[in-house]
């Protein structure tokens, strides 16, 4: 099936992202899906910089910068403010990093999801505090190097599963996506826009700087993450109806995904085996939830 990506751009050249930034590319795709009647909320994260310092502004829609832990509640507040003024056709989207979502922002996010406030919450996940210089977050995977988990003692806890946490809130829509599959990404943003209530989109968004990887591998590494089942593409409606959107015919070994990334270069064979086992285990769990054999 041929999939058309909208030609119109709502994010302009001149932003200040690093080369190969997954977060920058993902915003470009998200806005193509949502259009200009959108208000973007950005808490402290790489995008606080990427959109441009005052008086610059790289996106067509308005951007509301807010404090680190307030991405979700700021969206709730904006939606309430617009609704009471009769402006009910505007999409409000929070756009937060993994630290702002899985760590410091999870309280406000959980509160908004419990109230089913009407907005799209996006976590663009680059698996560490990249804007402050690559410190571990609860999204950093097991075994990864960061500046606070040195190679001698790499991260010893598994990545927190934020998508399942959000699904457990029984929100109308939660999905994972990544930029190697722009058709999947755009479809999911359009779907989220069409649903009332809290929508959560988890984007796998590589950071070549923090992952110690060549910037031109940005798209490829996303594809490897999906094809190795490290980051499966799926969606879930109302906390119950799971759909896996891409089932690799024969998953590639995780080693192929890990190898191009310097943050994993210290891993021993046994550690890679441990990662492979965890990925297999999580994939089987997901398949069970989705009723796929």
């Amino acid at each position, binding site marked *: 099936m041929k999939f058309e990506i909208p030609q119109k751009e709502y994010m302009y050249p001149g932003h200040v992202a690093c080369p190969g930034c997954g977060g920058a590319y993902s915003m470009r795709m998200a806005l193509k899906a949502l259009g200009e009647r959108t208000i973007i909320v950005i808490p402290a994260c790489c995008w606080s910089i990427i959109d441009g310092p*005052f008086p610059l502004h790289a996106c067509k829609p*308005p951007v509301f910068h807010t404090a680190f832990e*307030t991405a979700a*509640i700021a969206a709730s507040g904006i939606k*309430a403010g617009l609704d009471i003024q009769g402006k009910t056709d505007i999409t409000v989207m929070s756009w937060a990093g993994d630290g702002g979502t899985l760590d410091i922002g999870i309280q*406000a996010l959980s509160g908004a999801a419990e109230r089913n406030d009407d907005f799209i919450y996006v976590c663009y996940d680059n698996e560490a505090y990249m804007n402050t210089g690559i410190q571990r977050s609860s999204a950093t995977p097991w075994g990864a190097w960061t500046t606070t988990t040195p190679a001698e003692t790499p991260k010893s806890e598994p990545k927190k599963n934020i998508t399942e946490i959000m699904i457990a809130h029984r929100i109308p829509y939660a999905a994972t996506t990544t930029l190697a599959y722009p058709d999947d990404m755009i479809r999911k943003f359009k779907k989220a826009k069409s649903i009332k209530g809290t929508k959560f989109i988890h984007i796998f968004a590589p950071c070549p700087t923090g992952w110690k990887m060549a910037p031109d591998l940005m798209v490829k590494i996303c594809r490897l993450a999906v094809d190795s089942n490290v980051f499966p593409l799926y969606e879930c409606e109302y906390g119950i109806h799971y759909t896996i959107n891409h089932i690799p015919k024969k998953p590639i070994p995780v080693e192929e995904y890990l190898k191009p990334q310097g943050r994993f270069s210290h891993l021993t064979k046994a550690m890679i085996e441990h990662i492979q086992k965890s990925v297999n285990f999580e994939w089987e769990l997901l398949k069970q939830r989705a009723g796929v054999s």
Partner: protein
Amino acid sequence: MKKVITGNHAVSYGAQLARSQVIAAYPITPQTQIVELLSEFCASGKLNAKFIKVESEHSAMSACIAAAATGARTFTATSSQGLALMHEMLHWAAGARLPVVLANVNRAMGPGWSVWTDQNDSLSQRDLGWLQFYCESNQEVMDTVIQAFKIGEKVLLPVMVILDAFVLSHTSEPVDIPDQELVDRFLPLPPVNLPYKLDVEDPHAFGALTSPDHYYEIRFKIQKAQDEAVQVAKEVDEEFKNILGRGYGIVEPYRCDDAKLILVTSGTITGTARIVVDSERVKGRKVGLLKIRMFRPTPIKELREILPRAQKVVVIDRNISFGHSGVFCQEIKSALYGLPVQPTIFGFIIGIGGRDVTAQDIEEIVDYASKTEKPDSIILWRGVRL
């Protein structure tokens, strides 16, 4: 219509009559009744507002800020720990120049847990750019909430209306609740007329990374707005008086003209001090009282005009800035600095953590200050039991 209501409900009526559009709040004693009644107003349709029942005070303030950025008129209420949790976002509200109105019920900070009144919670937030009003009666509470929206929306700064825990919050007094039509004549209908707001037809970025080339001037302008707020608050109070028949001034001098000793108070201690002033006058002592209603911006001009009339100024602080002295006392000393004639200033601390402040306490304070040439310490502790 006159009703006998608590200070908390006076706040609720004020926020309702001001036609608040977005309310976000979290329960905390002794504030909770404010938002309970507002919830009822929203549920019954007496108030057309979105009420976001948030999971924390931090989120309450964040929601108000975000909603205010769309032009909605926003309100919240809190107390003590809740206000402290909001601290980061209190900075944000002022920095973003959004006229959020917040009612804070003065309650002492833990530990140990206390639900009783003192001013350390709100005075810890005095340097952020918020306007602060301290109230003496339930009528003043309701009227100040209504005034707060008008003042804040004129100078584009958030406003905190402050009332004492229990002494006002849970004490019933007769309050004249005005007709909506009168309040509408006083306060423009929402939405708020902001110079820039979140609008897809006129998109801007708000609060972006700001270099040293721009940041300094943004802070300079907050101070300018605070300066401007002194006059604006006086004018708004005057307009309120013309339409609704009641005014308070930013400070209220009581029997100060010929006073040899002036008590300086805020909040409900004022009501007790008034009685003491009258009884001291009967005894022949020329005692006056200056009530500070607006504390931010500090009414420096008024303090400099009124207080040097007396030889002695006795500041009563229900708060303590640890490592220094009472906050009002410090600020009054600072305001009077450089005057050719300086009154002797006595700084009393009293009533911390809600310990009762009685007329007898204030009489004894007056007696001590009358008979003492100079205080022997910058802090005069009243009623410490060791």
